[in-house]
């Protein structure tokens, strides 16, 4: 109950929610928290001249080797969790449009490599990198948001880091959440097919993190 109250106070200030609370008893506040938060988020207007915020997805990057993890087993599994999170965010906010025709950066090796090369280019500073991503990848493809991430499997560290990154063009920012798993928490085996899969909890946490970040555009 307390955590819900905290959440609402954080989503928007106390003051901006007061009118929504007024006339309600204490105990009713928490029951309406999620609904109010969703309503306010949906009401935030998209950029001028647009009805929607256009979101696309590129495969995670290996922040140690500075390469894309595309075409690896774990990449496809993480992609599935990320797409699930994006879809759930869209279900909660119909102003979000995912991989719509005309507003898409195809998740190809070429595009993944472009993103990696720009992100880790030692000759560019951070602002140049973000401007290059916006000007050369997002604007020509009419995309407002890229969902991608870092994947770090460091032999020195018992934990694997899975860090979704959400690049937001109109607010000139990147929001991210760092998730850490032991290898056995991240990768499991499907008892039926004996194929490698993401463990259920890891899959859900990655999807949940993406969904949460897409509420902060």
């Amino acid at each position, binding site marked *: 109950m307390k955590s819900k109250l905290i959440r609402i106070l954080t989503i928007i200030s106390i003051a901006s929610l007061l009118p929504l609370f007024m006339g*309600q008893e204490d105990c009713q506040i928490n029951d309406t928290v999620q609904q109010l938060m969703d309503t306010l988020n949906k009401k935030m207007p998209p950029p001028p001249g647009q009805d929607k915020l256009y979101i696309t997805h590129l495969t995670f990057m290996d922040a140690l080797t500075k390469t894309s993890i595309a075409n690896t087993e774990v990449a496809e599994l993480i992609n599935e969790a990320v797409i699930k999170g994006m879809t759930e965010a869209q279900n909660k906010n119909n102003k979000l449009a995912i991989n719509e025709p005309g507003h898409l950066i195809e998740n190809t090796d070429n595009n993944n490599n472009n993103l990696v090369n720009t*992100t880790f280019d030692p000759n560019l500073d951070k602002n140049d990198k973000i401007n290059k991503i916006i000007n050369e990848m997002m604007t020509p493809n009419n995309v407002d948001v890229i969902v991608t991430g870092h994947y770090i499997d460091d032999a020195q560290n018992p934990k694997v880091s899975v860090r979704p990154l959400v690049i937001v063009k109109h607010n000139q920012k990147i929001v991210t959440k760092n998730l850490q798993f032991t290898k056995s928490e991240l990768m499991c085996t499907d008892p039926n097919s004996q194929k490698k899969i993401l463990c259920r909890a890891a899959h859900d946490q990655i999807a949940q993190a993406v969904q949460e970040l897409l509420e902060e555009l």
Partner: protein
Amino acid sequence: MKKFTVLLIIMGLVGLGWQTLWPADSFKFPSTIKYKLLKNDRVVGSCRFEYEVKGKFENTSSLKLVNFEGMGLTSQQWLQTYIFTKDSSIYATFILEGKKPASEIRLKEGVGFDGSAGQVFVYKELTSPDQIQTELFTQYPVIDLVSSFFVASRKVAAGNLTKAEKFNFFFGKSTKIMDMMSIGTEKVPYQGKEVSTQVLIVRYNNVEIFRFKIFQDADGYYFPLSVIVVTDFTGSSQDTFEMRANEIQK
């Protein structure tokens, strides 16, 4: 007559010296502002805004919204924001329950999207180890609703009204780039009189979110006499919500 002239010159020099020594102090903001909370012009509660020049963190000032009364929230819950004294940008902001921070946003050293170190804003809740990090790529000052009371007043005091100014506005767990701009003057009732205020609006993607009516009193203190929260961005709702100052302490 001569003595009087000498006295005037001395007073002038002292005044000039004071201004040179303390240019930042030319902006005066009240230590306390009491607000009534109004819904559709009907008083439904009250709260208090507090300002301290020196915050508990180095080079910061403290701003608080406290003592909510007359609604579902309890006076145990309050908002506190620390701003850098130099440019009024946020260093940290807390939502507190009693003395405990229930959540916080803080400027920290973090790992950026390219793996390099840099300053980022980190949001976290007391009850969860999870953190959301925001990495900004603009130099716009970072503000939130609490600090916007101060920043809007300072903007009017500086006479910086001709063009819209951009801010990274903390809205929830992360920021949105919003514009603050003047749209003219308006008379507002204050302590039995109609007084003139400068009206500033805060817009997101060209849609108004907040409206501040900034007043300068006879002693040169600037503060929001009225803060209006636009609760329905579509404009279809007739409800208005307003915080209106009825008393200050200097």
